[in-house]
């Protein structure tokens, strides 16, 4: 058989196994814990002044959500519904559809994370290349190395706290939480866009600075390790301009591993900033899932986790599929004996 097809087949099995195992864990773990998800519904109802016979209602709702049936029946019906693209109805936000809730949260997460990931990747790679290339000649710029090290080893949520203190409390320049001001009507006008950007600055900065440190460090060490390669020395001996050697030879070759890293982190975007979203009450996927877990909203937990797992697993699959095509040095050894 064509080794590439065989290899793709294996990766495909991995993709499906990832989704299957994760969803099985996510299905059973919350159900093993004592707790009544219906409580959330009644809290909501009490809040709007509903007063009905609670016990009867709980029974009725349990039937409605199928929670009265044995767990394995629920499990089978979960897959059956999923195969038809049905994620079910949220318990805590009854009767909203899970897919709708996730879709309304997705743009916030994607917007925040895509922009910060790309900015930090480009900036980190370029600065890392220059400083790595110059080596000891880089002068004061070499201070970037310890700074990047500190940034990279700081968890993004710790950085978020420091940013909140400095820019939301000490100098109240940026708003503290949410994605836009209360009472603002979402729309495509300047006032709203400015408001959204202002709200995004602090969460974005906390993620951006941490990942910038990482891209900088990895590009710098890639360039340093390439500097001694024969083709670089050869290019120097031929008298090619240094600038051209850096960007046309060294940087280009370092881009392959660096791009793989980018692809991996793009896959992690959907679930990547959960704690930041919680700290800033930013209404993205992470914040939704966090609230769903707290209120035992089974369908919403399952839907949210599925979304994250699919994006991560798909990104990994695409990288694995593309890599042998880009880099001919990779051989197909099914066992992946790396």
């Amino acid at each position, binding site marked *: 058989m064509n080794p590439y097809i065989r290899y793709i087949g294996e990766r495909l099995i*991995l993709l499906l196994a990832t989704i299957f195992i994760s969803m099985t*864990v996510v299905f059973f773990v919350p159900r093993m814990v004592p707790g009544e998800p219906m409580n959330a519904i009644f809290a909501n109802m009490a809040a709007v002044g509903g007063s009905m016979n609670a016990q009867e209602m709980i029974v009725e709702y349990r039937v409605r959500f199928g929670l009265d049936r044995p767990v394995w029946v629920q499990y089978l019906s979960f897959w059956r519904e999923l195969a038809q693209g049905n994620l079910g109805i949220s318990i805590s936000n009854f009767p909203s559809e899970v897919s709708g809730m996730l879709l309304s949260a997705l743009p916030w997460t994607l917007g925040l994370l895509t922009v910060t990931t790309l900015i930090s990747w480009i900036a980190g790679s370029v600065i890392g290349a220059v400083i790595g290339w110059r080596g000891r000649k880089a002068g004061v710029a070499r201070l970037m190395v310890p700074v990047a090290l500190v940034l990279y080893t700081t968890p993004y949520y*710790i950085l978020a706290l420091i940013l909140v203190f400095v820019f939301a409390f000490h100098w109240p320049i940026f708003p503290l939480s949410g994605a836009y001001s209360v009472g603002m009507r979402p729309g495509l006008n300047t006032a709203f866009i400015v408001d959204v950007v202002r709200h995004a600055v602090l969460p974005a900065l906390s993620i951006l600075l941490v990942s910038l440190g990482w891209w900088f460090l990895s590009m710098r060490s890639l360039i*340093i390790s390439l500097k001694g390669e024969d083709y670089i020395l050869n290019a120097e001996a031929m008298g090619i301009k240094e600038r051209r050697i850096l960007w046309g030879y060294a940087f280009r070759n370092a881009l392959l591993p660096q791009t793989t890293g980018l692809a991996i982190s793009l896959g992690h975007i959907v*679930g*990547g900033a959960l704690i930041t979203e919680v700290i800033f009450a930013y209404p993205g996927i992470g914040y939704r899932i966090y609230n769903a877990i707290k209120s035992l909203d089974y369908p919403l937990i399952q839907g949210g986790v599925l979304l994250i797992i699919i994006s991560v697993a798909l990104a*990994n699959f695409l990288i694995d599929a593309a890599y042998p095509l880009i880099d001919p040095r990779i051989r197909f050894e099914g066992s992946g*004996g790396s």
Partner: protein
Amino acid sequence: MAVAPVQDAIVESRKGVLWELQRNRKFTIGGAIFLAMLLIALISGMMIDPDLRKSGSFPQRLPPGEGTLFGTTSLGQSVAIQLTEAIPNSVQVGLIAAAVGTILGALIGFVSGYFGGKVDNVLRILIDVFLSVPSLLFLILIAALLRGVGVTAMALIIGAFAWPSPARQVRAQVLSLKERGFVQVARLSGMNGMEIILIELMPHMFQWLGANFVNAFIAAVLAESGLSILGLGPSREMTLGMMIYWALNYSAIFQNLWWWWLAPVITLMALFLSLYLVHIGFDEVSNPRLRTEG
């Protein structure tokens, strides 16, 4: 390619690993900072009168220096005394989780790599699956559902998700080691699979396991502080993450009680930085090609 000679060189200089480590500047500086923090916390923790740990032992909201070293909280606790409890607890989470993860991972990796075949096929898929899922997601799920776990339970849960990366590395190492002469000789001389794993292969893995251990340690402390800040930490005990959680809970940032939240934040940053230096040191010693410049 050039990999095999490098490994041979390592195997031959194995008795020199500790010596090489203590010569590595990043390893020694990182290790010294880490040990200093831990020892100061442990020793002063032992000397402190246990009664002073209770809420209300000190006046509330004192800035640093006025009676206590790092100030006091809104509940009249000394931040410095909380640190003497939080640092060892956070380190304990890291140690237990890293030990569980590394041992579990090494075991799975050994079995998968050594026995091969169907066992390997299944384990390899499991390793790859758990490598690719974001474990923080599952940790949040489990911690949220268990509610109010202690430090040890927390560490075990985190450790249960720390095995895939050591498993993958150990598996790859075993695959390359098991074809080497000395393993063949051992097999021919009648040793069984377990004996070969323990006596012949284990000693070659210590450096990789060491670097892995530090890595898992960092990840575990990170996971603990993240979970705690979300309010899912060991609520009856003090860890660095829980200190931040309580400070945020009493809105220390907006009452300008900066010492309350800044003390655990800076401690955590120092802890991560020192452990990361140790990690780089380990990497450089076990992989000499990294040492070129830096």
